[in-house]
């Protein structure tokens, strides 16, 4: 049992790799231990049918921090874009689609009033998102015993609020706690516009448009504008290529990466994290352990409740991390045809969420561990921009599907209400029916399909609950309350253990800031870390 490393990072998700790279760049000897066979975590490319591969979990890049891309020299290490600045197209079954690309809206249906309201809304919320982006670029302040650095962050937040001007400031304070539904009703008439914006506010969250805090979710989604994105982007080779680029960059900086090694426990000596034990039984020692695994895995699974104090075990047992987003991958023998959608727009982001009540109803179902026959979808056809993912002439259609319950009664492979069909088969059929309302011939084109429910995502990507953000991004679980009070600023409540994944501030999405901020905090603390 030797201590050959200063830091062991659990998990080679993008945040783990980012954190490791920054630490290595500062001279630390870093080992990253990853359970899976490839780097990137939920930023992954997987073959789901012979000859067909796809971004298995996350599919779009829209908020990867430019500082991170620059510092890790991702493009030099192989990151290529298949497409950038893609528009979001809200599909209409009769073909009257609404296209949103950054600040621009294309629609035959939108009134002049709505267009004007949109401009005002977009500008205003853009300013709020800018303020958030700045706050997210540093560690969250602590409210008690705040020191100078925290005061500066608070000051920046306060100053930022002040600089917004009095009207904006009171407006932000008002709307950030409210729900998207009411806010949309306040601004717009167009059901389509209201729907596409509220879809973004609830994507990845166990929330419907009427859930308080969804405006925060919307602003979070808008962060990317400050990071150089005008819409979503697609990575060439799928999200796994981003993981590979990050791993290459980390290796060049001296990070040692061990894939296919599951950590079975984070070990402590005299109340301080001192290393990890692998599933193989091998023990590794280091002065610090940093986990990019989700907080429940980290604390409950790896540290173990019995090795922490009760108050903390209690906090961990109470966090909300049940995912509701599923993934459906379809292997198609040709390019699908969507009513009223020209070929050029097939490579964009396609959204099915006709109106806000539709979304709310789809959400209602998961409250009762059910699924709605009318789910909402975020669809990509990645092979339009990057044909390598399918055999020649063939295509992949891949969707993020909301809302899927974590556990329908009897489990996903248990019997559904339709005789002979499991929940998995039934839900797949419902989603296909839904897509077919917009792309009538699609069912005949499907040669293979794969549904990944939150339970499957949990298993395949090692995230408790299969949650997009590892932990729900609700107002009681953000900033200094993330992941839970008592564990903040990337420290964990167990000395020597830090968090650097989506469960830490600021949250999930392929962004890299959790990893970067955690590394900065560890380096700032120096010997005291």
């Amino acid at each position, binding site marked *: 049992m030797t201590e050959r490393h200063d830091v062991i990072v659990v998990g080679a998700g993008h945040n783990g790799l980012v954190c490791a790279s920054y630490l290595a760049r500062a001279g630390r000897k870093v080992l990253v231990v990853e359970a899976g066979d490839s780097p990137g975590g939920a930023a992954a490319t997987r073959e789901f049918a012979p000859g067909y591969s796809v971004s298995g979990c996350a599919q779009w890049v829209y908020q990867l921090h430019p500082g991170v891309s620059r510092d890790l020299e991702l493009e030099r290490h192989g990151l290529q874009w298949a497409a950038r600045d893609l528009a979001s197209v809200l599909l209409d079954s009769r073909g009257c689609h609404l296209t949103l690309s950054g600040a621009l809206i294309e629609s035959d249906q939108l009134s002049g009033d709505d267009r004007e309201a949109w401009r005002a809304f977009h500008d205003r919320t853009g300013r709020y998102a800018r303020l958030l982006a700045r706050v997210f670029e540093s560690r969250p302040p602590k409210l008690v015993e705040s020191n100078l650095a925290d005061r500066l962050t608070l000051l920046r937040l306060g100053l930022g609020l002040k600089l917004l001007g009095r009207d904006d400031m009171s407006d932000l304070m008002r709307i950030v706690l409210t729900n998207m539904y009411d806010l949309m009703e306040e601004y717009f008439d167009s059901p389509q516009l209201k729907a596409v914006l509220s879809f973004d506010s609830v994507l990845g969250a166990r929330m419907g448009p009427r859930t308080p805090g969804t405006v925060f979710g919307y602003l979070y989604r808008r962060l990317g504008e400050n990071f150089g994105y005008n819409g979503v982007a697609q990575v060439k080779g799928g999200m796994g290529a981003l993981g590979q680029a990050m791993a290459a960059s980390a290796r060049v900086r001296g990070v040692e990466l061990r894939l296919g090694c599951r950590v079975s426990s984070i070990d*402590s000596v*005299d*109340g301080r994290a001192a290393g990890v034990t692998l599933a193989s039984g091998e023990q590794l020692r280091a002065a610090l352990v940093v986990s990019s695994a989700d907080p429940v895995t980290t604390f409950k699974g790896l540290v*173990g*409740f*019995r*090795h922490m*104090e*009760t108050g903390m075990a209690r906090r961990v047992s109470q966090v909300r991390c049940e995912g509701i987003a599923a993934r459906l991958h379809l292997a198609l023998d040709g390019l699908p045809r969507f009513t009223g959608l020209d070929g050029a727009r097939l490579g964009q982001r396609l959204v099915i969420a006709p109106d806000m009540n539709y979304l709310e109803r789809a959400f209602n179902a998961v409250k009762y561990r059910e699924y709605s026959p009318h789910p909402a979808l975020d669809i990509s056809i990645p092979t339009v921009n990057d044909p390598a993912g399918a055999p020649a002439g063939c295509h992949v259609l891949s969707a993020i599907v909301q809302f899927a319950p974590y556990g329908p009664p009897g489990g996903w492979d248990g019997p559904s209400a339709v005789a002979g069909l499991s929940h998995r088969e039934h839900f797949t059929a419902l989603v296909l029916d839904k897509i077919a309302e917009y792309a009538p011939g699609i069912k005949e084109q499907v040669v293979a399909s794969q549904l990944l429910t939150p339970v499957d995502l949990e298993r395949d990507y090692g995230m408790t609950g299969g949650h997009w953000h590892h932990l729900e991004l609700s107002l009681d679980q953000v900033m200094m309350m993330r992941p839970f009070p*008592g564990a903040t600023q990337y420290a964990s409540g167990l000395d020597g253990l830090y968090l650097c994944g989506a469960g830490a501030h600021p949250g999930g999405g392929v962004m890299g800031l959790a990893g970067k901020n955690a590394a900065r905090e560890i380096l700032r603390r120096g010997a005291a870390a």
Partner: protein
Amino acid sequence: MKAGSDATMMLRTPFHARVAAACELNDWGTWKGYTTPRAYTDMELEYFAIRSTAGVFDLSPMNKYRITGPDAQACLNRMVTRDVSRIGVGRVGYTVWCNDAGQVMDDGTLFHLGENDYRLCAFARAIDWLHWCALGFDVSIVDESDEVAALAVQGPTSCATLLAMGLEGLEQLKPFGLTHFSFEGETLMVSRTGFTGDLGYELWIAPRQAELLWDRLFAAGEPYLIKPFGSDALDLARIEAGFLQAGVDFVPAESAVRSGRSRSPFELGLAWLVSMDKPVFNGRRALQREQAQGSRYRFALLDVDGNKPAHHSFILSRGGKVGTVTSAAWCPTAKSNVAFAQLEMPHGAVGEELVAEIYYQRELQWTRVLAPCRVIGSPVFNPPRRRAVPPGAF
């Protein structure tokens, strides 16, 4: 409880019929929703029974929790400050437990009944906290407060009384030991424990045999001048013996509303109960920090001049307020005027001379005295019979 003319909201202990018959003063108080006597006949006579003969106290309302299962010891060891692994089977340990902030939630006694089989007696309700503490442990937790009736038999003739009742060999039981007897088809557990600082025992029995136990006990104890006592006499005895009372001498941390009102074990003079060498237990991180940075308060036993109990007094040093009194009494056996005080650090070192600002009333006239007092190192009452095995005949 049947509805009737004497229906009451108060709960009754399994001994109630006997207690009520003996309670001449009808001076009832409440304890955890139970109606219990403050005094039966005369508080002072009851106190003297504890110190000179034998006194009996109904402690059935005490919260009692049974913790069993493969991880029972590990779970309790993480919960309380003491090293539970050092409390052997058949032994009882006094301990406190803290929240993560290292603040005392409660104190109590832990009975090690068998391998991974414990009973925790607690002042405050603790079922929710026990369940939180059980996260990650394979244990079962049962609230058996209502399944176990209990009597404390305390005083010099307590052993002789119990021997006369037929508890053969009891004189060999060591302090903080426990043993079992059969009693009319039930198991009677006896522990050599108590809250009076005297020779004494606690008897634990199923409620259906409670009244019979009371009757046998008082029959056997008659020649030994046995007497029931209420909570007032107990309070006097425990102050004389230097025992803290939860809710009086400290605010249970999780029920403190105002910040800064709770106390750590160090601040309550209970450092001897804290095993910092355990790798993890609730409050350890905070207590480590406290050790490094220093405590805010110190618990002090004060010997106060004069005979006016320093109830609720301010404690002064050079005219400035440095603390307050939480419990005080003029202790008849030790013949000293004792006060428990919470003093701001660095005050409270043994030998320090301070002043108690005492207010008292005589025939509607309030008087203030400034009584010199000094910090003493150990309780004023601690007789050899409390520890002797066998305790000897009195």
